[in-house]
């Protein structure tokens, strides 16, 4: 056996050429596209008389600007209508498969890739969205790209890209009651910083990851980019293989058996080498809440808004900026902070298991008066499954709005937006100023069960009180 990690093995396998400038020409095994970051890419192709090189390796859906309350066309927002029409136009005759709402398979691009079995171990995956790192949960090399790079993949199925270093992050111990994948990744980002991952791909490992479901691993890999790492992955194991069995695009029968033996071979060798190693004690993790304007600014729910003096000198400037934006008071407890909106959704936490955990908290209870609460399933398939299981009723009876699949309030590009200085308990991935559609809005990131508890109390609550 060699001493190679998965990232290097997969990278090597997909290397077309080492370019003279030092970058690698990397073959992209799976390219996912959506309505927002592609229209200019298709225009660039047309301008240069280029066609799509491997149309069978690109798959499209709509998620970012799609309204979640109605799919009636034309959309009221003329710009949204224009963008979706542009995608439909660009795809016509291209040979690219399109999972539009009428397919019953539409959803957030990082939810449907795995759900359809498109995402498989050992692939290189690119998409014009920074949360493409999500697909790393399956042992892939997956990362976000810009629009000119979307053009590159369409025209050549390749990218010119610099190989990053690999850092293994081992999470030891076991998670306590009420702690979930979101709390693990928020802890990792808090520990290593929002720029700690620049130049690195993260390999997440250790007993906590080994025990996690694929959906939990996806939540972790999803937020790699929030820690500065363009890619993050988990080695594929039986959990991954059994997830992939019987998915639409998964290999079938004997081919599946052959696939599994290859998937096993691309996992990191037991004595693989890494450029850096970090270990975190999973048993010490508490449910987390962000208090500031970047995902590294988080505290355990039973903690307090940090005083500037407690922070490393380097972090104080951003903290001051955060307090100027939020108006929160350093030293006060974060639990009990009043909220206006509760959002369960996004490519981080809108899969069926996220809805199960949230529904457990919500069942038999009511959303606090005056709170706008919404659940936005990550895909049409997640929505259907939830409805078959009666989760929709649990949420609706409690006072949540039950929406159609899409990115919704994660990013303020569709009708779901914060208004004015609203404070939102959100299961999404970014708490940047203005991220949720209001320049003055405030986002408190937390796991979906924590959002559910916050919706019930109308303020930041400790999910452990409900379990």
């Amino acid at each position, binding site marked *: 056996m060699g001493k190679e990690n998965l990232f290097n093995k997969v990278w090597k396998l997909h290397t077309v050429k080492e370019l003279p400038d030092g970058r690698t020409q990397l073959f992209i095994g799976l390219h996912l596209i959506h309505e927002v970051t592609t229209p200019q890419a298709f225009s660039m192709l047309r301008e240069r008389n280029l066609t799509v090189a491997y149309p069978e390796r690109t798959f499209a859906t709509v998620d970012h600007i799609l309204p979640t309350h109605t799919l009636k066309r034309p959309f009221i927002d003329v710009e949204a209508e224009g963008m979706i029409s542009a995608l439909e136009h660009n795809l016509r005759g291209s040979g690219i498969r399109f999972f539009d709402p009428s397919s019953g398979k539409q959803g957030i691009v990082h939810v449907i890739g795995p759900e359809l079995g498109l995402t498989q171990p050992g692939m290189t995956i690119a998409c014009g969205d920074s949360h493409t790192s999500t697909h790393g949960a399956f042992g892939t090399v997956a990362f976000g790209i810009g629009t000119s790079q979307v053009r590159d993949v369409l025209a050549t199925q390749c990218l010119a890209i610099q190989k990053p270093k690999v850092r293994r992050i081992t999470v030891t111990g076991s998670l306590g009651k009420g702690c979930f994948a979101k709390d693990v990744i928020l802890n990792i980002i808090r520990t290593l910083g929002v720029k700690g991952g620049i130049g690195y791909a993260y390999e997440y490992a250790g007993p906590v990851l080994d025990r996690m479901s694929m959906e939990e691993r996806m939540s972790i890999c999803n937020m790699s980019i929030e820690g*500065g790492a363009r890619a993050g992955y988990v080695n594929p194991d039986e959990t991954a293989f059994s997830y992939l069995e019987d998915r639409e695009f998964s290999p079938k029968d004997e081919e599946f058996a052959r696939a599994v033996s290859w998937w096993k071979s691309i996992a990191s060798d037991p004595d693989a080498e890494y450029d850096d190693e970090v270990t975190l004690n999973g048993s010490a993790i508490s449910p987390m809440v962000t208090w500031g304007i970047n995902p590294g600014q988080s505290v355990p729910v039973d903690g307090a808004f940090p005083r500037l003096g407690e922070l490393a000198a380097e972090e104080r400037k951003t903290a001051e900026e955060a307090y100027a934006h939020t108006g929160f008071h350093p030293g006060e407890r974060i639990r009990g902070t009043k909220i206006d909106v509760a959002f369960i959704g996004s490519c981080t936490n809108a899969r069926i298991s996220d809805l199960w955990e949230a529904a457990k908290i919500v069942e038999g209870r009511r959303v606090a008066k005056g709170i706008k609460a919404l659940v936005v399933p990550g895909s049409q398939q997640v929505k259907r499954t939830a409805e078959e299981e009666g989760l929709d009723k649990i949420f609706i009876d409690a006072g949540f709005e039950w929406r159609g699949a899409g990115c919704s309030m994660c990013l303020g590009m569709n009708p779901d937006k914060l208004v004015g200085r609203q404070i939102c308990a959100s299961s999404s991935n*970014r708490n*940047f100023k203005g991220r949720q559609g209001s320049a003055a809005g405030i986002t408190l990131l937390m796991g979906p069960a924590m959002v559910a508890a916050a919706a019930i109390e109308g303020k930041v609550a400790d999910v452990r009180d409900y379990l």
Partner: protein
Amino acid sequence: MREARRTIRTMSAIQNQNPEIREVRGRALPLPSNDIDTDQIIPARYLKAITFDDLGNHAFRDQRFAADGSPKDHPFNDQRYAGASILVVNKNFGCGSSREHAPQSLLRFGIRAIIGESFAEIFADNCTTIGMPTATASKEDIENLMSVIRENPALDLELDIENNEARYLDFSIPVTQKESARTVLSQGTWDSVSLLLKNREKTDETARALPYLNHFR
């Protein structure tokens, strides 16, 4: 006001449509703060367009203007820096969303190069793809440069791509660039699609060797 200019040398090689970017010279605009994300650079609502053309008007929109449209105190509104072509920033500039709209909006605002303490990776790659150099310098040098610019807004700043140096007044500071970015910008080969298209056969060869594209045989 002097126009920003790039030293452009046309390549004789026909395949290269890009100019060589060996230096960027012009007035500078200091934008202090760490972790300036791409949602701040260009709010998501301006991504609802099928071209990049109008993005220059919306760069830092919510940081520059209040909800009622009245201008806020922001370096991009500061007349002393009008016409600047080199942006000077702190750490982790361009973090967050992969939206190429962020560098495209800065380019259309008039920015031709960025010097900072550090850059988020996807952002930096997007800058390279559109021919906008990103160079890093030490915290001390950046802070000093920002103060000097504030004192002398008309200062002429020169980013020497080939020699990894930024020059102003009688000073020069060392800068670092991703070597691949420095190479493609200075050689005028930053149009990645031309580069990649050259290896079509090798691409197909690579695809033929991938188990998952060949029934795992």
